[in-house]
């Protein structure tokens, strides 16, 4: 026996599917369009069958082929004649299609055998049996029915522990949906939950409220502004000149209704062209005004509720609570009036739109069915061959072949479908997995073409499925389709390397690369980056910002990349001072012929700098090159020290050789004038890039493995240090998370320098955490106090700070104490405690 677990609210207007899993109920979303609700509408278009929201679009336009509201006709012998099919369909067949569509919400890998379907309390045996039949036709082997008010009560009882305890007694389920109203009296005892009585109005719902807003507020406001004669009559003419406006008003009225559920007033604002004249409508609406319009309709529902109470001779004291169901119960007026006029407690705790499906799933979790076991005995290879040799392949067996381009530069791509065998009365359907495209069910033919709508610049994945005449999927014929949009096929080309921009990393006093276009992106490419200026540049000075665009491996250091575009904007180019923190926009475009176009816009000075670079020309900025040189030199010196310490002699020898080679052109580089025109800078840049790339590989996999191990160990200590910090905890945690987030990317880089750099960042963070920990600061302070006068730049000042720090410590003013210890550290002649090295960078953060 297996629990059913699936609950379905097969509604008049909308349907939902819920499933009990992991001790809770989950409402499933439609993979097409990502909505929880599915419109209970079926459209038989000329060449395809649509189910759900798309079908609803044609409900008023094509009523002879599109059907909704068929739930009301369940159990009757009424048939709908479909003009496009030239045949009749029954309400059961239409409900079957809706149920099958709901099953797709669970995804292609799940095919449930049993479900609970809810029915209105008013359904008689014929109607109930018709629902049961629809469930069985939809492929469920076991179908259980549950009355909607019971489902809603179950959802409420399971919503809180308190509700579960108080369940005995009478409950009123007040169900006010989009098109119908129902109220049911439910009696709950320890052993039983049953509907005692019910009332309803099949033509009263939330849509009537929208029409009230249109008729009483919007139309009079439009007439007052436009003075158009016969406007109201014209607006209601089918295919009339104001048809678009009519649909617009329906949308705005519904939006206003929702807004007024949250706030006391709103404004409907829209532009429209009426009789060749432009109008800008601004229509304020307040809750008081709409409440007056809605009141008679709410009153009607309360009258029905009271009639149940009278009929069953119950007073308000006999009712535990009114449980609200249906989207219209979101309206504050409904809630207020229920409380005011009935005097009964009203519960708003459950989601009124999904409560019936939720309750059905709770019920399903306790309902069991006989599971059809699937043979799982393994078949050995010989046995499989024997079976196959006895099988005659049926020449009529359906074969479906599809073909398409795997990449496209168009917004649509053609899918060719070729069938052989028995394809009569079979269907296919193509859906895009993001939910933005669905063909609906289309008849298979020997040859068909379908245009697939593509999203730009991504891999679009589609699912192609084939169905039998009852619209059950033939699973073995399912195919997945992937089409890359914007991808080069003949006349473009993919990027061989990442294209990055060099940005400052002031925390670590270095620069880093940020990828602009990833390797293998297809040309042309265009992107705008928005960043901040990280240092103030005074007008007329030689200070500058540098926009350095590089090609290479994005995870390596900038000097390992080739600079393909470099723009220097100095103080002499500026109209006014460029202040730190102001915005810079850098638009980068690479054409199919690999020309690099940049457009830099300084928001503060409102200046634009356009450059076109040919990628065949090298771009070198000498001051930036010098800084990169120093960084590489510093890194190599540190590497040599580390290799010495860890006794990696071979690595040490190689690193020393690189350092020697690097230093061989140091003098030349530092003697070069900033705007030197000779080729020298290119030669040096080339040499540096080669050395930098070699440094990245130093020590090979062995070094990478050691560094990753150190990194992982260090993470533990850093986490502990942050946990113990007394100040700046959030900031430290953010820095930690930033490093952690980049983990998978830098570990994948297989580049020792990159991992080493991350390890250094962790180490810096560790020291930052310590310097924000009072106990560590006290230790440091004691250490500083023990230093000699010659260890300080200004000993008298140091003594005075020590005195203030002592006083702060004694009075437990720890933030002040911390500040004084920092001040003291800044007075030390040489200190590793507080880094303060000169860093120029690119000027862009």
């Amino acid at each position, binding site marked *: 026996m297996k629990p059913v677990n699936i609950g379905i609210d097969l509604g008049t207007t909308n349907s939902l599917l819920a499933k009990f899993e992991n001790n809770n109920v989950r409402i499933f979303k439609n993979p*097409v*369009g*990502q909505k929880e609700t599915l419109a209970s509408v079926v*459209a038989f*278009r*000329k060449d*395809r069958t*649509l189910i759900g*929201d*798309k079908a609803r*679009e*044609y409900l008023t*336009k*094509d009523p002879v082929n599109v059907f909704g509201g068929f739930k009301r006709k369940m159990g009757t012998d009424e048939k709908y004649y479909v003009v496009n099919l030239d045949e009749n369909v029954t309400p059961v067949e239409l409900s079957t299609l809706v149920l099958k569509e709901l099953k797709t919400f669970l995804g292609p890998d799940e095919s449930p055998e049993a479900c609970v379907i809810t029915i209105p309390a008013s359904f008689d045996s014929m109607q109930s049996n018709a629902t049961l039949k629809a469930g069985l036709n939809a492929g469920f082997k076991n179908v259980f029915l549950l009355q909607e008010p019971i489902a809603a009560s179950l959802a409420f009882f399971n919503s809180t522990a308190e509700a579960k305890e108080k369940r005995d007694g009478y409950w009123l389920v007040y169900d006010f949906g989009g098109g119908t109203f129902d109220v049911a009296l439910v009696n709950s005892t320890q052993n039983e939950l049953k509907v005692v009585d019910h009332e309803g109005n099949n033509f009263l719902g939330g849509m009537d409220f929208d029409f009230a807003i249109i008729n009483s507020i919007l139309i009079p406001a439009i007439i007052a502004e436009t003075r158009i004669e016969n406007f109201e009559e014209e607006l209601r003419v089918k*295919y009339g000149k104001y*048809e*678009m406006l009519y*649909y*617009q008003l*329906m*949308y705005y009225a519904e939006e206003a209704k929702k807004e007024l559920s949250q706030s006391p007033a709103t404004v409907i604002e*829209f*532009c429209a062209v009426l009789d060749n004249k432009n109008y800008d409508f601004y229509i304020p609406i307040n809750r008081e005004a709409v409440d007056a319009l809605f009141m008679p309709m709410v009153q009607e529902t309360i009258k029905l509720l009271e009639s149940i109470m009278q009929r069953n001779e119950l007073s308000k004291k006999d009712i535990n609570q009114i449980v609200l169901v249906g989207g219209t119960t979101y309206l504050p007026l409904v809630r207020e009036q229920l409380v005011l006029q009935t005097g009964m407690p009203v519960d708003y705790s459950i989601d009124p739109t999904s409560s019936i499906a939720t309750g059905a799933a709770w019920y399903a979790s306790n309902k069991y069915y006989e599971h059809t076991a699937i043979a799982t005995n393994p078949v050995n290879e010989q046995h499989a061959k024997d079976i196959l040799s006895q099988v005659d392949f049926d020449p009529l067996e359906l074969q479906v072949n599809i073909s398409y381009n795997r990449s496209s530069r168009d*917004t649509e791509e053609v899918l060719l479908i070729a069938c052989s065998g028995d394809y009569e009365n079979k269907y296919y359907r193509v859906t895009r997995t*993001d*939910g*933005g*495209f*669905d*063909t*609906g069910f289309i008849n298979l033919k020997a040859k068909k073409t379908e*245009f697939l*709508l593509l*999203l730009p610049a*991504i*891999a679009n994945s589609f699912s192609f499925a084939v169905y039998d005449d009852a619209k059950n999927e033939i699973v073995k014929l399912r195919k997945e389709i992937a089409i890359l949009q914007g991808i080069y096929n003949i006349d473009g080309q993919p990027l061989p390397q990442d294209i990055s921009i060099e940005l400052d990393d002031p925390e670590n006093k270095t620069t880093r690369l940020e990828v602009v276009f990833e390797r293998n992106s297809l040309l042309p490419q265009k992107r*705008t980056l*928005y960043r901040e200026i990280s240092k103030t540049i005074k007008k007329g000075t030689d200070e500058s910002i540098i926009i350095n665009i590089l090609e290479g491996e994005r995870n390596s250091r900038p000097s390992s990349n080739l600079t393909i575009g470099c723009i220097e904007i100095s103080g002499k180019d500026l109209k006014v001072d460029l202040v730190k923190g102001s915005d810079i*926009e850098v638009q980068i475009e690479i054409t199919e012929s690999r020309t690099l176009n940049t457009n830099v*816009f300084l928001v503060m000075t409102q200046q634009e700098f356009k450059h076109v670079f040919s990628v065949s020309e090298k771009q070198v900025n000498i001051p930036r090159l010098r800084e990169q040189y120093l960084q590489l030199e510093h890194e190599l010196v540190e590497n040599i020290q580390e290799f010495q310490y860890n006794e990696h002699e071979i690595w040490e020898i190689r690193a020393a050789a690189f350092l020697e080679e690097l230093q061989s052109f140091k003098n030349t580089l530092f003697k070069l004038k900033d705007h030197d025109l000779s080729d020298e800078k290119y030669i040096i840049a080339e040499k540096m890039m080669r050395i930098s790339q070699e440094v990245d590989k130093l020590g090979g996999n062995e070094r990478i493995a050691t560094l990753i191990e150190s990194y992982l160990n260090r993470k533990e200590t850093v986490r502990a240090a942050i946990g113990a910090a007394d100040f700046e905890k959030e900031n430290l945690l953010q820095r930690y998370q930033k490093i952690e987030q980049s983990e998978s990317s830098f570990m994948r880089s297989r580049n020792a320098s990159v991992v080493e750099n991350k390890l250094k960042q962790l180490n810096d963070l560790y020291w930052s955490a310590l310097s924000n920990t009072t106990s560590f600061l006290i230790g440091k302070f004691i250490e500083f106090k023990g230093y000699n006068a010659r260890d300080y730049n200004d000993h008298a000042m140091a003594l005075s700070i020590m005195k203030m720090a002592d006083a702060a410590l004694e009075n437990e003013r720890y933030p002040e104490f911390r500040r004084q210890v920092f001040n003291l550290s800044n007075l030390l002649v040489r200190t590793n405690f507080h880094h303060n090295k000169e860093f120029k960078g690119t000027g862009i953060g």
Partner: protein
Amino acid sequence: MNNLHILNQLYEIELKIAGLGKAEGFERNFRRLYSIFEEEGLFIQNPTNEPYSDSRTDCDASIIGEPSTAMKITKTIKPIIYLKAGDKVQLVQKAVVFVEKI
């Protein structure tokens, strides 16, 4: 959810400014604003003037006049919004559009 509300408001403001014939002066600011959302993975798409078929489940359409096999989107009062996370793309808001026979 809040981001979607802001994006919808932005779209509305942009339309309004375009209606006043002043779109040019604000183009850069809108590009910038949309790029902030793109960094969060939210991508907006205005389908106005694109062809319409009933396969377009990225739009909730009201059909103006007679339905036809050749229709186009003539007005968009709410744009399409996609959420990109890694390689995955998901529709998070359908457009609200009006479509007419071409």
